[in-house]
């Protein structure tokens, strides 16, 4: 099957901010030319490493984010590099530019030159804080952006005095911003391209804190973090419980239908652990709310006698929105992901051979969004991209 976006050509200037957006294009079949500085992309030096090989060719960070891309080293500080870069842009649909504000222009690649090279180009500039403004020159990181964005202050422990707010792992600030860059670029193409998009990681993160803004705007109060569950204004019952196998279960009771409640109570009752939850008074919403802590404790005692997987599948069979708290390695043999072809094999050539990669989560009917090729070695496609050996 053909790639969903196989008609597109994207030029990506390497950088930690643009790599996720570039991967979203590349896995959809777009040709993505990764322009690396002499010496290679910074993230070729990021851990984790492939089986302990701490060299620039073995970064799993780089491998993950650059599947399907082509690599060319271009020295944009030099005239030949700039000329090759502009030639590349002339045939591209999108430029993913993760340089600092004014960074490209300082190298002599001005917006005038770029627009002269290709008037239909969608130039996506993805910076930490935007092109202009009082903090435009500031530096970010995944942690710094999740702090300023408000994610961290909603995540942590209220049963542990003076404990810090906690960030989410896996480069999520980059994912939030990079996904928006992908959306913005595709939207611009619908209108014929030919635009400059100013997108900041800070804006993207700041707009993703669920109900915190309405709560503040309507009630004047600020949500605070709660162990294992949503930040909230007032204390809420625990919904994360430890199972018999030491793993945890997310057992959130929101919008529980009468049918789901009956299923839950009869399930507990089968094991003699329903306690007083069989009392029909719990069908009264006010009672359900008033007794939320007690209900949570009864469920916690039940979960403690089962494995996390038993609770996960038993609860879902009863129309409850529970899940086991899986560790990343649990996904490797997860039957659902296997049935949906989440994991794929990519050929790395010698000596690595064929290796198991994560595919994409996009499932389409008439086209395909999935990685097909390992990340490029440094300058693997450089000669062709620079036009060496050709008339150019």
């Amino acid at each position: 099957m053909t790639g969903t976006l196989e008609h597109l050509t994207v030029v990506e200037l390497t950088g930690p901010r643009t790599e996720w957006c570039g991967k979203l294009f590349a896995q959809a079949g777009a040709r993505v030319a990764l322009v690396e500085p002499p010496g290679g992309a910074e993230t070729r030096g990021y851990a984790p490493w492939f089986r302990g090989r701490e060299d620039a060719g073995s970064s799993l960070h780089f491998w993950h984010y650059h599947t399907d891309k082509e690599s060319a080293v271009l020295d944009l500080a030099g005239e030949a590099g700039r000329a090759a870069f502009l030639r590349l842009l002339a045939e591209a649909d999108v430029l993913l530019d993760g340089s600092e504000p004014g960074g490209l222009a300082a190298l002599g690649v001005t917006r005038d030159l770029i627009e002269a090279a290709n008037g239909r180009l969608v130039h996506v500039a993805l910076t930490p804080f935007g092109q202009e403004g009082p903090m435009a020159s500031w530096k970010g990181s995944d942690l710094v952006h999740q702090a300023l964005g408000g994610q961290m202050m909603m995540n942590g422990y209220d049963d542990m005095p003076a404990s810090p707010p906690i960030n989410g792992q896996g480069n999520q600030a980059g994912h939030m911003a990079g996904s928006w860059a992908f959306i913005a670029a595709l939207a611009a193409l619908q209108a014929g391209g030919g635009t400059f998009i100013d997108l900041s990681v800070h804006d993207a993160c700041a707009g993703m804190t669920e109900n915190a803004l309405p709560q503040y705007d309507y009630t004047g109060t600020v949500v605070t973090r709660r162990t294992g569950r949503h930040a909230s204004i007032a204390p809420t019952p625990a919904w994360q419980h430890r199972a018999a196998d030491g793993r945890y279960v997310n057992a959130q009771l929101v919008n529980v239908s009468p049918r789901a409640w009956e299923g839950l109570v009869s399930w507990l009752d089968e094991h003699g652990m329903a306690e007083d939850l069989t009392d029909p008074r719990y069908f009264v919403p006010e009672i359900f709310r008033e007794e939320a802590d007690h209900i949570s404790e009864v469920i916690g005692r039940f979960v403690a006698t089962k494995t996390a997987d038993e609770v996960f599948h038993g609860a879902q069979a009863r129309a409850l929105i529970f899940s086991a708290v899986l560790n990343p390695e649990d996904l490797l043999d997860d039957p659902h992901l296997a049935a949906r072809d989440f994991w794929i094999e990519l050929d790395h050539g010698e000596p690595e051979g064929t290796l198991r990669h994560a595919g994409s989560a996009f499932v389409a009917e008439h086209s395909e969004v999935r990685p097909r090729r390992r990340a490029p070695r440094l300058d693997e496609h450089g000669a062709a991209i620079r036009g060496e050996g050709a008339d150019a």
Partner: protein
Amino acid sequence: MSGGPLDGVRVLDFTRHLAGAGSTRILATLGAEILRIEWPHPPALDFLRLSGPHADGRPGMNRGGFFAQINVGKRSVAIDMATDAGKDIARELIPHCDVIAESFSPGVMKRWGLDYEAARALRADVIYLSASGFGQTGPYAGYRSVGPTAQAYSGLTATSGLPEREPAGWGFSYMDHMGAVMNAAAILMGLERRRATGEGEFFDAGQSQHGCALLGPMLLDVSLNGSRVRPKGNRDLYGNFCPNNAYRCRGEDSWLAISVREPEEWAALCAVTGADDLAGRAELATLAGRLAHEDAIDARIGAWTRERDARAAMAALQAAGVPAGVAQTVEDKVRRDPQLTFRGLYTTLGDPVLGERLYEDAPVRMEGFTVGVPGPSPWLGADTRDVLRDLLGYSDETLERLKAEAIIDDAITLEEAQRA
């Protein structure tokens, strides 16, 4: 060229909650016309309409602040999808729409005769998104999911927290936001492919699977190295930054995040914090050297921040080129973040029922185009008459009859909107 980039794109919107309706919100901020099909009772009720916070603390269909946040600039068409006549009207709308998006449980749209196969028979090049918790196929296809479910299943929850403690929990429905973002991305991929080929497309999106795909390099670490990834608090999971932590500052629950990778950042951190002794130790100039002494470095920085105002410390560090950011609450973002104010991330819209309220704008500026929150959220049924008259040519007589038969509804007066 002052409109949005998606001007002219029309979406028939059966999405609900944040993970679904958040995706059509994104399209609305880019200029698409969104026709929300909804009804005050199940099955076409969006329960988010009843969620708090509420204007004046009083619940009502048009009084919910969270619903309003997620449904800015959409149009509301009230059709009772439990009736055959209602389903017929929805089918009549399909030829007029570029995109159909839905987030019901798998099987609902098929039972209504509105699944992709039925829709493409009415409009061959339609882009159709089915968004659910675990997708339309696979052993967990019938499983239910909200944000925390998807986060727990995907490994995002397990990897966020303090070492040796239970997972911190993320604290909000990250995967509702990112589910919405990925669903909007899917629709746009479909539109882009249609632009190139003229063909339609169907996307089967599972919120939980999108969570798995967002684990980043952890995915290859477990698959190729056999690693067991466990939380390390705020330290970088793979040691690419050190120091990298949240440090307590003066005042109540005040924290500053600091990340250092480059030698010059480390030197600047030492200079600003007065750690001349650390700056002089050659082994700490490298990342590997600092990782070997991370506890001691964290203790030194923490002792410095503990005596300082978080914002002053942030400004001093950033002025010297050190990545640093205060852990902000929503109040901090609205009132004390000069960059968000400069960028205009928060915009104010008025609505006669809700009053003047704050809305998060799209984080995108696109030269030559208008991108952003287009207007307030619709009262339930506010656009029923206009849409059915303009797109389907329904006469006033037909509209009155359908309303009398409770097939459609509207909310054309403020009094009706207040009461709903």
